[in-house]
């Protein structure tokens, strides 16, 4: 095989088949890392995580260049972002429930969990609007303001995306499509929510506590 002679094949025929494995009885979907969608979600989280890392890099680069920080503005208010963080962390619990009940293919519990998660997303969005009001700096005031709005805006974009996704999935589970592989989608939606939670914690510290410690 290593050094076969070179003869262009003139055969038009494909090789005949020899069946050595039958996959007829294999399952038609699965959960977690056995599912391709899970890997897709991880890959998107990796790319977006890289985006967050870049934005955080921009923020600290500007801190390093300027020396004093924040630039001609008081540090942002703490109340609304802290409330946001608490609600976000608490939402991890119904999120975990959503994933677990989904894996059990328990439709009524999954519907309840998804409604809770949709409401949580809406509440968080309202708090986020209040949060923008307490920044004490506009994006076009100076580079500090630009960096703050960049980080908060980037996270809000993720919050909005996941909220939209959750609402659509919730509606879907109340229709006749709510069975089978859709339960696996519930798990992947829950996974993405963890990404939204995890990416917030460093941003919370950087935007609201770092200027007070610097």
């Amino acid at each position, binding site marked *: 095989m290593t050094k076969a002679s070179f003869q262009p094949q003139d055969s038009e025929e494909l090789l005949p088949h020899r*069946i050595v494995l039958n996959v007829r009885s294999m399952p038609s979907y699965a959960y977690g890392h056995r599912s391709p969608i899970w890997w897709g979600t991880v890959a998107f989280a990796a790319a977006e995580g890289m985006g967050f890392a870049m934005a955080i890099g921009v923020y600290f680069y500007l801190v390093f260049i300027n020396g004093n920080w924040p630039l001609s503005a008081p540090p942002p208010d703490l109340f609304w972002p802290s409330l946001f963080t608490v609600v976000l962390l608490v939402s991890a619990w119904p999120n975990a429930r959503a994933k677990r009940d989904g894996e059990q293919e328990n439709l009524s519990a999954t519907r309840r969990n998804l409604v809770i998660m949709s409401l949580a997303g809406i509440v968080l969005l309202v708090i986020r609007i209040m949060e923008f009001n307490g920044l004490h700096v506009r994006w076009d005031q100076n580079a500090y303001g630009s960096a703050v709005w960049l980080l908060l805006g980037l996270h809000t974009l993720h919050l909005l995306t996941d909220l939209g996704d959750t609402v659509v999935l919730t509606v879907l589970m109340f229709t006749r499509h709510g069975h089978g592989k859709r339960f696996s989608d519930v798990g992947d939606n829950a996974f993405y929510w963890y990404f939204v939670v995890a990416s917030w914690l460093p941003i919370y510290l950087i935007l609201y506590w770092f200027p007070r410690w610097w």
Partner: protein
Amino acid sequence: MTKAITPHELDAVPEVTRLATGERGGVSGARSEADYSPDPKELRDDQVDGPELTARLAKTWGTQKGLIGALSTVDHKVIGRRYIITALFFLFLGGLSAVAMRLQLARPESSLIGPDLYNQLFTMHGTTMMFLFGVPIGEAFAVYLVPLMVGTRNIAFPRLNAFSYYVYLFGGLMIWLAFMLNIGPDVGWFAYVPLSGPEFSPGKRADIWAQMITFTEVAGISVAISVIVTVFKLRAPGMTLDRIPLFVWAELINSFVIIFAMPAVVTASALLLMDRLVGTHIFNPAEGGDALLYQHLFWFFGHPEVYIIFLPATGWVSAIVVTFARRQAFGYIALVLSLIATGFLSFGLWVHHMFTTGLPQLGASFFTASSMLIAIPNGIQIFCWIATLWDGRPVFRTPLLFVIGFFFIFVAGGLSGIMLASVPLDAQVHDTFFVVAHFHYVLIGGNVFPLIGAIYYWFPKFTGRMMNERLGKWHFGLAFIGFNVAFFPMHITGLMGMPRRVYTYLPEMGWGNLNMISTIGAAVFFGSFLLFLYNIVTSARRGPLAGPNPWNAGTLEWASASPPMPQNFDRIPIVTNREPLWAHRDSLPVAAGLSVENREQIVSTVTAGRADLRESTPEPSIWPFLSAVAITILFVGSMFTPWALVWGTPPLALALIGWFWPKAGTEDER
């Protein structure tokens, strides 16, 4: 039916337990719909055989006729073919802009092209070659070939893949339309601030450039994710990590580099747009911003970009070398590890593009060292290929000729690269034609020559016909000579001090003769591409018919028909060897039991490649195309008003919901 392994038969098929996991779909203790036995009325491929099986599968997996059908297709081969043709189209546009510049530079004080058009030309040339040709062409080949080479029927997330193609196409058309309307970007392919900022580039030119980046990066990241998941989860049973074809490894590593590098350039271009359009100050030193930050962000992407262009080419080279050397790759593990090492190291080089920006000396030394370090894995690859050829019985057909050309040109470019890694030399020749010569040796040598070889090599698979060999040899001769005549003199013009990006020069500088030689070489090089185009068009119509495996190659794409049927394979192959078709010359071991009426494919485990699920993959849909249209409206609109983000979002959200909403009557719903 199943054979056990015997020591005498290394390529024998292992027992079923090593090919399949045999696990349930549901979690333990729960009753899951995943484990319901399939509908007994549904026809499966262990019940039919031969031409009937082929015809039925082709109907299930085919693309509908008509415009709506063409825009709804999710077939990776159809999308891949469009991707390849579009990228080659942009290669020709980029080439034409280069020819225009060469004509202008042929004589001193030439008045063919004025400075404003010249600025647009070099910007369009670089931007097109890097973003609209260099990155997409590697991904395009992955879209077409990776599913075939790993032995599956479609790429993972085929709708995302279709969406990415349209986004890429619209982004490319947008920037070229702008150029034709005389609002083409004129700030260089890396669009440095402050030149590209609001103060020095009023108007829309720089916005068009920055938004084009957004388009191509959305497309690029989407394809990269599809490729990664295809390689991880859709490999044929038995394709363990060490049996993955080298081309697929190269595309896999490439996709990882894309995922981690491209967010940096999106950040750079998005911040540039924000500075220009909504008055942020990230790059404005007067308000606490910093212009060099832009260069850091850009080159944190820009250097990996070079390897995003080069890594797929290593895959083409590996595939061609192995087939035409008639032996398995020498140093498979070393080749794979070199790819991975290159991927990692490519992130540690970016500052060597910024040696003249006055960075601390310690930093410069570090980046000099890492720039030299990356020569090691690249050198290992070159030596492995040479060893493979040395120990094989090389057959010098056109694809291999282009690979040989690649060795000479790429190594020459690598050597001038090592020179440029040293700070004093770099500071001397920075922004001169020496650098232009260097990166064209690296990029044309490292990407375009292997690409042409790859097109000659896979053309029979794409079209079912062979390309003309005699024209191919002429093509190679003209391309090799033309390239060197065009670009070698630029080393000297650069050392003589000729800067890049000047639209003309004075006769007293003494650069006239060398520039004339470069222009003649460029004309010959361009002529070689016209010959190539002629060869492609005539061979596609009248070339001799190719069988499934005209080169007698070993990887799985050659087990499908030429051109492949919509289903790729009538049954999913079982892999026992790195070169499956060399191991099984008489019959192909396969898995049976998949649906003939629905789009089912085997999902396998990440490392051992054991069959795990029979999952259905999405049907054709018009929504990815409509989503691409909606996102184009949003992106283009947002260059003119930030409110486009508001009114552009509902149509996009609607299109995305249409995309993800399950359709009645598909496999999922039964």
